[in-house]
């Protein structure tokens, strides 16, 4: 009997070819229009007047200061949140205590409220009308409209990334490996260093990357607390907006393209990690 005479079977979950093509086209068009096109246009606009102009826009003192400030804020906020996130997820995943559910909800708070409000909270806390602000000012410590305020706002907004990444991972891994290490005579610190950390390293790195991307890109909260003193308290996103409002399109998009490039690198690293991460998980516990 020839093969062609047999009836064709289709998996119940399979669609007709036409529907398949339509669905693919639709999602591709959507992605192209809403994601790819804007990204491309950022770079097109940035390089519209040639590479020289692009380069000029980036080394101009205010832009350089913004890039420097952004990197510095990220360099402070990310390690802080790495430590906080690690501690919080460790506590949540490995111990039972009262108020655990509340703590988990609290960690999500920065995700659920608007960044502008996060910024305003710090204005309330450290502004001239508050209790803390004048006191700190009398000691010569400026929080608002200065770098510390920007760091605080960034730390707040980017807090959940590391913890959110690690909690499910650590809960899934349980405490078996740690108990094994302890029973073999390892101290708490040795257990953390030799067993816990290697078990979570890919998830941790992933969380740090996301945290970093957000720390560099945060606009709302930082905008409120920075006071936008040009060249002093403007981060890259703030600098982009200022340039844009001055109709300096090429310069605005040049700085924007740098931010976009950072995001792209982060995404690329994240994809690489996921490949690695997935493989690591597949060979994990049985």
């Amino acid at each position, binding site marked *: 009997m020839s093969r062609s005479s047999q009836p064709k079977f289709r998996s119940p979950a399979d669609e007709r070819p036409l529907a398949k093509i339509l669905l693919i086209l639709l999602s591709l068009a959507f992605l192209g229009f809403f994601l790819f096109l804007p990204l491309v246009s950022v770079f097109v606009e940035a390089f519209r007047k040639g590479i020289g102009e692009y380069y000029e826009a980036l080394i101009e003192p205010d832009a350089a200061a913004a890039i420097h400030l952004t990197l510095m804020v990220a360099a402070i906020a990310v390690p802080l949140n790495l430590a906080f996130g690690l501690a919080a997820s460790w506590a949540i995943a490995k111990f039972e205590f009262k108020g655990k559910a509340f703590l988990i909800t609290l960690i999500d708070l920065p995700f659920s409220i608007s960044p502008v409000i996060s910024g305003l909270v710090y204005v309330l806390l450290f502004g001239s009308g508050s209790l803390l602000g004048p006191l700190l000012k009398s000691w010569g410590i400026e929080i608002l409209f200065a770098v510390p305020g920007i760091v605080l706002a960034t730390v707040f907004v980017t807090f959940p990334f590391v913890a959110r990444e690690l909690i499910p991972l650590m809960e899934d891994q349980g405490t078996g*490996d740690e*108990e094994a290490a302890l029973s073999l*005579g390892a101290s708490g610190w040795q257990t953390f260093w030799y067993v816990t950390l290697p078990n979570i390293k890919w998830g941790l790195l992933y969380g740090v990357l996301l945290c970093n991307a957000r720390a560099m890109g945060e606009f709302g909260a930082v905008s409120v607390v920075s006071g936008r003193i040009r060249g002093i308290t403007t981060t890259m996103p703030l600098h982009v907006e200022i340039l844009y409002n001055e109709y300096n399109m090429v310069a605005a998009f040049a700085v924007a393209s740098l931010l976009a490039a950072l995001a792209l690198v982060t995404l690329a690293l994240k994809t690489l990690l996921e490949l690695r991460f997935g493989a690591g998980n597949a060979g994990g516990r049985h």
Partner: protein
Amino acid sequence: MEVTINNIRKEFERFPALNDVSLKIGSGELIALLGPSGSGKTTLLRLIAGLDFPTAGQIFFGAEDASHHSVQERNVGFVFQHYALFRHMTVAENIGFGLKVRPSSSRPPKTEIRKRVSNLLDMVQLGGLEKRYPNQLSGGQRQRVALARAMAIEPRILLLDEPFGALDAKVRKELRRWLREFHDRTGHTTVFVTHDQEEALELADRVVVMSQGKIEQVGSADDVYDRPGSPFVFSFIGESSQLPVEVKDGTVLFQGQPIGISETGDGAGELFFRPEDVNLIDTQDALFGKVTASRRLAGTRIAEIDIANNGHPPYHVEVEVPLHAPVELGSEVRFRPTRWKIFRK
């Protein structure tokens, strides 16, 4: 190392997981903690290891009160149910871990660690697998790596939590025999947890039968099988049937009728007997019922019998009968237990 457990109580959020448990484990003994899930057997093992601490009671290692010693101080070898091998370390690194983390004063040099790891691997018959990762090993091999890792720290006692639980039947049998030989060779005091009675009876010097946070009976395989000390042990270990009876003037009555066996001490109780301890008999004073099913079991036949119960659901018993006994479906058979035990209400 002798281990003495004195009146241990362990509560989790007020729920008692262990209730006044005492046990003496002799040096070099191989002990099985046997019980259904929730009986507290794993909790007891973890308390001995120092992975959990008792709410009340003491644990002695030899003459030393270890109740408040940390798991590191107790120096016990613990093999976890799912092995808990460090997945990012090779087999050799896993086994050498306990030596590597020692304080520098007592840490052997690297070459010495390597030598000991290789000896341990030979001992668990896994020589040559030093560079493999845990996910490149079979279940049985992982089990033996976990054992070698626990032995590397020269533990005072060896504790195993469901050591064969995650393995298939054939590997289980092999490893069981292997563990017995391993124990006889090394002479370590060993305690293992299992819910598999066959495993416990075959492997252990003494079996500790546990139920609902209490020790029901401690004894050899023969003790717990032939002389069960409680209704739980009788029904948990091996096959058994039970019937409500009454003893009157030394005669055992079932539903008010004598069944041809006698017992001292009047009163109501539960009659327990095993399928193989039954004789088919053709007299009036015996138990009788209808055969509802029969199945061939190796050299004999097991008949399932329903005994009528005045309109209530019938009592169900199982008896072992000779291969050619007349036990057609629906036929009525009469039988008497030859060995039995009556537990008083």
